[in-house]
């Protein structure tokens, strides 16, 4: 029965214009940013406007295999992927309360737990499609730019297993924010509160807490590293290291294992809270 409920949730999700509009918009943003970088590099071929270091950096950003690091960054917690996911999760989840479409399943003997899990699973599938969009558009665009700029994709230098793990790590850092907005939507029944709350927490509040903790000393700084953003940073540092674009030896970061467990704990917490609220809600006005 779970698969049938999931099929219903998928149908509702994939027939929504909002979902496809977000997919197209996300693809266009990724393409637009990379295209702007390419044009900048191309128009400064003779080093007229840019310093040679800056141009070199941009060139690397657009060239395989390093380009993947930047493409994957769009997926990660501080990229566009989570923002689009949060908007979708907030709108889709809260609108079900307005339309009372949960009743369709619940008044037919489907348990609240099964319905909630099916909704989450459908939203995770949507998240995967967002990631796929970023990877296809970003990977495709940088492949073309690499060929135009360097004449080859330098495939021998592309470590596929590291690439795969980097994508998985970035995708994993999206989940706590998706689950946070899901919880806010269930608890508040409002798309504005859920999406707005999620965006404020992820884009502002977390950074403010981290900055504030920095003023309170090392202990406080270490504690706030366990917020989803800090843990995501720690995990994504491995991507930079593995793809040769940075270092993972920053002492302020949590170990990758602890970061993975910490993020899982946040995900479980938000799903658990969503379930707790949903199980206790009265669903007739």
């Amino acid at each position, binding site marked *: 029965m779970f698969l049938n409920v999931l099929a*219903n949730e998928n149908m509702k999700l994939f*027939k929504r214009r909002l979902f496809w509009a977000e997919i197209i918009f996300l693809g266009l943003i990724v393409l637009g940013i990379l295209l702007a970088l390419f044009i900048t590099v191309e128009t400064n071929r003779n080093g007229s406007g840019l310093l040679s270091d800056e141009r070199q950096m941009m060139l690397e950003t657009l060239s395989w295999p390093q380009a993947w690091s930047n493409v994957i960054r769009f997926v990660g917690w501080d990229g566009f992927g989570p923002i689009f996911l949060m908007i979708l999760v907030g709108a889709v989840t809260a609108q079900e309360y307005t339309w009372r479409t949960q009743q369709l399943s619940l008044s037919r*003997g489907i348990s609240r737990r099964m319905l909630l899990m099916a909704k989450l699973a459908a939203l995770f599938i949507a998240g995967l499609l967002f990631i796929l969009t970023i990877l296809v558009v970003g990977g495709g665009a940088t492949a073309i730019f690499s060929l135009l700029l360097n004449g080859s994709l330098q495939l021998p230098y592309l470590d596929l297993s590291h690439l795969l793990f980097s994508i998985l790590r970035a995708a994993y850092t999206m989940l706590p924010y998706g689950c946070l907005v899901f919880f806010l939507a269930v608890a508040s029944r409002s798309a504005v509160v859920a999406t707005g709350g999620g965006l404020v927490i992820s884009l502002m509040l977390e950074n403010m807490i981290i900055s504030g903790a920095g003023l309170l000393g090392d202990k406080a700084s270490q504690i706030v590293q366990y917020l989803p953003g800090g843990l995501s940073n720690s995990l994504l540092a491995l991507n930079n290291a593995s793809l040769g674009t940075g270092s993972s030896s920053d002492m302020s970061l949590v170990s990758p294992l602890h970061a993975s467990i910490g993020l899982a704990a946040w995900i479980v917490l938000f799903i658990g809270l969503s379930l707790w609220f949903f199980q206790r809600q009265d669903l007739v006005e």
Partner: protein
Amino acid sequence: MQKEIVLQINELKKHFGQVRAVDGISIEVTRNQILGFLGPNGSGKTTTIGMILGLIHPTGGTVTLFGRPISPTSPEPLRKVGALVGSPSLVPYLSAKENLGLAARLYPETSQRRISEVLDLIGLQKSSNQKAGTFSTGMKQRLGLGMALLHQPELLILDEPTNGMDPSGMHEIRNMLANLADKGVTIFLSSHLLHEIEQICTHVAVINKGRLVAQGRVREFVGQKAQVKIRVDSTELASQLLHELPGSIHIRTNGDYVTVSGVSSRAVVSHLMSHGVIPSEVTNGDLDLETVFLELIS
């Protein structure tokens, strides 16, 4: 032979803070009954139905469906129930057919042919590919009803099913419900339309301010008290005098007529005549459901 109890509500309560929306009601519905669930706005009808369907957590009491207790955490007995609560829960950007498809997927044994049958039954075959969000209120009600009927439920729970329908649509729904009842479907019907209830239902339960004020067979209900209709020159004076009569009586005036219930025609006429009021016309008759309902909730 004792009939199977399909739905049993026992001392059901729902309190929202200080407000007692439902305050200890008990109702029993046996197989093949059509129970009319009546009550004024805000009397607790929809809250009661929400609790039957596991959508609202009761503060106290129990609901049993087909002998099995139901609650928001154990909704399995609802598999045999079809329901339409208030305005139907439709996905507005999906077509009528797709909305029915959502309901059908929850009952894997439902065939595509059944979806087509239901579209015919509710008169939406021609609009089957139209988005539900563009439907009129009446069409939405029909679609909601279709979704409730799709899996051929044993118990149908309907909250104002003819809401927003034109008279011919209401007539069709009435006939449809009568046909379903003939086929052995048990129906729990909440409605404001007393005439509708009187025509369709075998039994009736009346709720007011969260409490059950009466329940029984419709025939017993409307036949248990007689009403006296008299024609007088001064309805105002007659009303004043009739209020002096002992017992619980209900008086209505309409033009030259005064309708009195809860007292015999002999008592009415002799009391009026002893005060010099001579009725020019006296008619005895059974009470209609509307009169009984108004009397119960007053």
